[in-house]
């Protein structure tokens, strides 16, 4: 069972939800921090590192003895990573997305591939939680391949919670694709609603079942509730706007640990998810 946690707007509480859900889970559970540009689940789930693997993407290398400057590779590359000029094409590895197309279209088989490192995947253990996180190297902008490497570590035999990056672009789509259920976290503000609507369009396009979690409920207005009612979207949980949650968070302490009364709320959510997914 794979549950992905996404949001349109950033800072609505994806990691808060993911970490508390993982901590409330009964039995072994995997938490995948797919926000590889700034992973932060490890601030709340402090574990022992079991493994670290570097991840790369294949980038082209041109054999000058074989290249006849036909230009097929440069014309094929959507990312403009190859400039075919005399006397030798110039390659920009930082623009390459590693699709491998240039080596396929080269009629003279002049292109081979080498790995360019983009980051690491780390596996940590904390009690029943296996935390798998990606860390993109500084200066790298190619995110989806690292997210795929994080997801490749997922053991399908165990339940998994995927903490997505904010927004609705490629990194988010890469994260939530293949999930059994998507939880969209929002806040009851005009910004929260605006970005929630965009995220709803995204999950509908991907044909994934989803529900909404409202965080800091009571701090804004009712428009998110009205939107969900009109769109027939289930609101699975409303986390109250409780100062004590923020105080615990500021110390890196999860609400289910600092305020045990909230644990019941997350157990109820897990129960609800189990029932919905098995249906």
């Amino acid at each position, binding site marked *: 069972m794979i549950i992905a946690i996404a949001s349109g707007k950033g800072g609505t509480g994806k990691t808060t939800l993911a970490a508390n859900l993982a901590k409330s889970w009964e039995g072994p559970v995997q938490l995948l921090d797919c926000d590889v540009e700034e992973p932060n689940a490890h601030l709340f789930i402090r574990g022992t590192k079991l493994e670290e693997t570097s991840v790369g993407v294949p980038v082209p290398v041109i054999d000058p003895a074989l290249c006849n400057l036909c230009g097929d590779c*440069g014309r094929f590359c959507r*990312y*403009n*990573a190859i*400039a*075919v*000029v*005399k006397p*030798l094409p*110039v390659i*920009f590895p930082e*623009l390459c997305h590693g699709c491998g197309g240039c080596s396929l279209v080269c009629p003279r088989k002049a292109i081979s591939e080498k790995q360019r490192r983009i980051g690491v995947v780390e596996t940590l253990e904390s009690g029943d939680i296996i935390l798998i996180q990606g860390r993109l190297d500084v200066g790298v902008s190619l995110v989806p391949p690292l997210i795929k490497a994080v997801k490749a570590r997922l053991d399908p035999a165990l339940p998994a919670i995927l903490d997505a990056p904010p927004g609705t672009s490629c990194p988010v789509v890469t994260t939530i694709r293949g999930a059994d259920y998507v939880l969209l976290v929002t806040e009851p503000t005009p910004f929260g609603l605006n970005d929630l609507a965009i995220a709803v369009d995204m999950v509908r396009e991907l044909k994934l079942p989803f529900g909404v979690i409202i965080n800091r409920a009571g701090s804004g207005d009712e428009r998110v509730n009205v939107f969900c009612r009109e769109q027939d979207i289930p609101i699975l949980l409303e986390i109250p706007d409780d100062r004590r949650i923020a105080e615990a968070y500021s110390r890196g302490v999860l609400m289910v640990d600092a305020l045990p009364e909230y644990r019941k709320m997350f157990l109820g959510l897990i129960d609800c998810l189990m029932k919905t997914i098995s249906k």
Partner: protein
Amino acid sequence: MKIAFTTSGDNLEALLDSRFGRAPKFLIYDPETKIIEVIDNKQNLNAVQGAGIQSASMVAQSGAQVLVTGHCGPKAFQVLKAAGIKVYNTDAPTVAEALKRYQAGQLAEAKDSDVEGHWV
């Protein structure tokens, strides 16, 4: 020896465009034959990334050995250098004025890019 200019127009009196990678057009001028060729750069103008790189390849394909433009970023410069094209930066308002300054020897050959990528 053909000279490439960045511009939005199609004759020597047209304005010189200060951008290289996302210039609307390249005007290729041959001082010996006085023949002008205009290359549309629309495809690169709208590129998501790598506009300078592909603009540099286009200028190389045109046969120009000199580029006179406003500014040139690092990736474009790298390609132009690899292709053996000399780059000259100028604030001349028109192509004609840029040509005049180049031919009068008033422009210094650029040793490196003069702006960061995406400088506009």
